[in-house]
């Protein structure tokens, strides 16, 4: 049975949210006109620099289980720790995924820096990050549709490096995917190349529920989701 699904969506299928880009700059509101103009201009060009690839491996019931605080996918045992375990312990299947927007945007951003246009370089980089997130959302919707089609349910997506799940587990995750899947390679440190790539898993099964990330139960102060939280409570 086919278990590997990969796609090359076109740019217009993604929901790139400009507000997220301004938010990443620091502006929750009142973004200066100058930055809005550059962002608009670069967003139009970004379409040509991005090379979108996204895909997942579908693990059917029986090849995924969670027990004793660990997640077992095929022959790999993941130390997902408490937070993610609490969200996934009732799964019976999973989708292991990767998305990448290629290195075009990185090169484009670097070129701006070399040409003494650092602001454009910085904004191009932020745009790349937002496109990568939008691509992961796009893929999550595909996985959700797949689950629905089979009459099952799915969880939110979880990535190594978040919610106390170590980035070092990237190696195990990628061992479940074909080589060079979606153009992504892992280096020894578990860093994905191209830079603008995201990996993770979605739990599936009749008892799965999509829930918001449980940031209130995590203590990682450097996590940006926490940083947003502290801003919210402060204001």
């Amino acid at each position: 049975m086919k278990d590997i699904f990969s796609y090359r969506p076109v740019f217009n299928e993604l929901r790139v949210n400009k507000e997220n880009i301004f938010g990443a700059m620091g502006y929750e509101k009142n973004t200066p006109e100058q930055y809005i103009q550059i962002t608009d201009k670069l967003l139009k060009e970004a379409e040509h620099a991005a090379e979108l690839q996204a895909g997942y491996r579908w693990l059917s019931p029986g090849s995924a289980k969670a027990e004793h605080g660990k997640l077992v996918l095929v022959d790999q045992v993941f130390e997902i720790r408490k937070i993610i375990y609490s969200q996934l312990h009732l799964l019976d299947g999973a989708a292991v995924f990767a998305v990448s927007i290629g290195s075009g945007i990185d090169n484009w951003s670097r070129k701006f820096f070399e040409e003494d246009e650092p602001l454009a370089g910085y904004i191009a980089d932020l745009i790349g990050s937002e496109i990568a997130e939008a691509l992961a959302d796009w893929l999550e919707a595909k996985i959700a549709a797949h689950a629905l089609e089979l009459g099952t349910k799915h969880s939110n997506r979880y990535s190594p490096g978040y919610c106390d799940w170590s980035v070092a587990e990237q190696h195990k995750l990628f061992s479940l995917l074909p080589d060079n899947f979606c153009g992504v390679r892992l280096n020894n440190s578990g860093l994905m190349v191209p830079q603008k790539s995201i990996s993770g898993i979605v739990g599936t099964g009749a008892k799965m529920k999509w829930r918001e990330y449980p940031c209130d139960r995590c203590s990682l102060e450097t996590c940006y989701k926490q940083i947003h939280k502290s801003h919210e409570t402060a204001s």
Partner: protein
Amino acid sequence: MKDLLEQLGLCVEKGKSDRNAAFPPELRGMDGASELTLKALEAGFSANQILNEALMPAMQRVGDRFAEHKAFIPDLMIAARAMNAAMEHLKPFFESGEAQHRGKIVLGTVEGDQHDIGKNIVKMVLKGEGWDVIDLGTNTSATEFAEAVAEHPGSLVGMSALLTTTMVKMEESLQAIRAKIPATKVFVGGAPLSQAFSDQIGADGYFPDPHSFALHLREIS
């Protein structure tokens, strides 16, 4: 005459690097930091005076707003760029020893890591502050860091990383650097870093952004 320095300061603060810069709209078509610096030199101001009475106070104002969360990274960047445009004209005076440079700093993203952008922003801001930045790029090995400090005696070091799995390379690099030149001050930064990690590996400090880092460097230089 004073107006000239004031206007120059305003240009730096607002990020208007030259006449062609379209922003801010209220300064459109007017001289920018580059032209005004030349005019200030022609008018007889010394390089040090221009630096200390116009450029540095302007950077200070942007920095203060940044610290109060009223200005953000892009504002620091455009100010630093305008500052650099002005510094281009002052460089000859610094090189001849007529005015003071702050010193050298070696910057690099650690081995196994390709994240460039954070380090590049730090580089820009420090250049704007008058530091001579030696940029080793990304994927910098411990040996490369050590060789760079040996080549540039007295330089400080700033290391950057994106992930917890790459930041661990900082300890190795720090040891290689200290093995060459024990007194070298080494600072760390990047998304997963913290003061606790800096203490743990024996670095001289963690800074979350280029502004707080630049302020600290001003204090110790």
